[in-house]
């Protein structure tokens, strides 16, 4: 039970390229900023949108390949889809909703209703069986949508931002429930979300989709340990610098020079943690820090005892200092400042 998908797709001005491999029983989270194309990837996998080139193979079944003019309609794919707004059918009861997929696949009415009732029991909304979907709360509707998708026993379950429509208060408890229900499902699962907490709580592996490309795949720990995109860097709260390493110096596209300790030459990422950056009003001579960059303070953000200082310049950075230091230096937005980091405090890895 595997998914092998490698395809490209045109979304307005965005050119999307996706390469995904999901192993049996795995839950892959597709994480990224809004507008990255995550939902579109899901729609393509579901057959709701055609791909431009490439192929999608679900469980050895080729479902989409433009080159050979192969396209399998959504109703013939072994999939289940849980939509962001659940999209339950208002003209049917909750039970009929859950039974819908089975009925559509020609299961006799009595059997379908029986299976549906079991599912409602399993997700804990059996008492709403004969009500219309509009009388369900957000969390209940989500469970109904999940039961509806799972009732047909799909091989691949696709979830599009399943928690996005919920208010913050219910999100945690629903996430816990969702985790419980998803754990018992043996097929492949792909979950799209913009909230890394979802990925953390639910996923085995994470694929980061940014600006139409899958930039990183791995466990969340692996991904956040070595960010390869601005998105992840911001997620983790570190500075990410991209450039080319030559002779122990990384040069960015803007021309900034970063002196680093032992790294392979070539295109590389450099991670500078905000607490490791020192701020000085005037450049200091005779310091062991090999790196000093001039800049202007653009933002000062107090977070209790710590302050995040945003600096703009040849190398934009976010530094973290104590509130006491801020008051002592009397730093204000608009002030000129020098940021300094030791080469040994910078982590570098190849692209």
């Amino acid at each position, binding site marked *: 039970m595997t998914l092998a998908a490698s395809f490209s797709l045109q979304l307005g001005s965005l050119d999307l390229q996706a390469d995904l491999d999901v192993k049996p029983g795995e839950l892959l989270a597709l994480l990224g900023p809004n507008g990255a194309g995550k939902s579109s990837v899901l729609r393509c996998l579901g057959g709701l949108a055609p791909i431009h080139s490439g192929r999608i193979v679900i469980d050895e079944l080729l479902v989409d390949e433009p080159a050979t003019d192969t396209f399998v309609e959504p109703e013939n794919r072994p999939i289940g889809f849980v939509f962001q707004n659940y*999209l339950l059918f*208002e003209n049917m009861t909750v039970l009929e909703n859950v039974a819908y997929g089975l009925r559509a696949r020609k299961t006799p009415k009595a059997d379908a209703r029986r299976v549906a009732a079991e599912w409602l029991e399993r997700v804990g909304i059996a008492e709403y069986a004969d009500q219309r979907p509009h009388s369900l709360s957000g969390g209940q509707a989500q469970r109904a949508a999940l039961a509806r998708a799972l009732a047909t026993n799909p091989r691949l379950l696709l979830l599009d931002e399943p928690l996005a429509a919920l208010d913050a208060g219910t999100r945690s408890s629903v996430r816990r429930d969702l985790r419980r229900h998803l754990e018992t499902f043996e097929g492949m699962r792909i979950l799209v979300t913009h909230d890394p907490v979802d990925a953390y709580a639910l996923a085995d592996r994470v694929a980061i989709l940014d600006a139409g490309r899958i930039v990183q795949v791995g466990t969340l720990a692996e991904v956040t340990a070595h960010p390869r995109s601005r998105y992840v860097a911001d997620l983790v709260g570190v500075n990410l610098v991209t450039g080319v390493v030559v002779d122990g110096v990384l040069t960015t596209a803007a021309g900034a020079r970063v002196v680093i300790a032992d790294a392979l030459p070539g295109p590389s990422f450099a991670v500078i943690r905000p607490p490791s950056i020192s701020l000085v009003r005037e450049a200091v001579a005779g310091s062991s820090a090999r790196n000093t960059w001039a800049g202007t303070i653009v933002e000062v953000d107090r977070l209790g005892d710590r302050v995040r200082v945003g600096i703009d310049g040849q190398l934009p950075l976010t530094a973290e200092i104590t509130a006491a230091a801020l008051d002592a230096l009397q730093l204000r937005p608009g002030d000129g400042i020098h940021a300094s980091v030791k080469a040994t405090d910078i982590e570098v890895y190849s692209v």
Partner: protein
Amino acid sequence: MTGRRRRGRRANLPTPVLALAVVAVVFFALPLIGLLWRAPWSNAWGYLTEENALTALRLSLICSLWATLLSVVFGVPLAWLLARVEFHGRGVVRALCTLSMVLPPVVGGVALFFALGRRGLVGQYLDRWFDFRLPFTTAGVVVAQTFVAMPFLVITLESALRQLDQRVEDASRTLGASRWYTFRRVTLPAIRPALVAGGVLAWARALGEFGATITFAGNFPGTTQTMPLAVYLALETNPEQAIVLALLLIAISFAVLVGLRDRWFGRNDRASTTVLA
């Protein structure tokens, strides 16, 4: 304070607007009141049960129902096509299919002649090969009525289909439902209010059709003389009977419109879109 207590009923309707609305109601009520005032109540039953009156009534009801059925069978797919499928010249096709709404009905009747009459574009082959003619037949009445009535259904439905959230249909497909199953169990129930409203409009239009009918199908008691035609001709020799027949037609239409109101036209709180949240 009585003013405050009554506030809820009138909601936010300003007085001048209310006055205009009242004028409109009077405008519609006056002709009906005029008819009721001039009606020969003592002879009414006699006129109603006269054979040609009953025949015309039966013919009107049968033909208008057939026309409504045809309008639904062909109009629903047409509405679907216009609402969902993007193709070159869609605007032109839409205008073409709803043209009969703005055409004077007699013009429509004449046009039908040239298309489906004995010497018509298509009609000549119907006559030659199948010995089948539409003018002067009851089928011709149904054709004329369908021609003028269908656009009402199409317009109403197209609007409803456009407002429908297509993603619900996507959801249905992912659950394993074919396009037809989706249409049957998800789309149609969702547009039911519009379907009923459009159907009633089409039926009412078909029932009242005069110009296209008399021009294309002709006028003969029992075959093509529908109520509107009977009323028109009665006006010349027996105005009293004409008034009674007219009132009968109005009474039937009125009963249908009042009876079908709220229940079937759908409630707006649970609109046809089925998206939750």
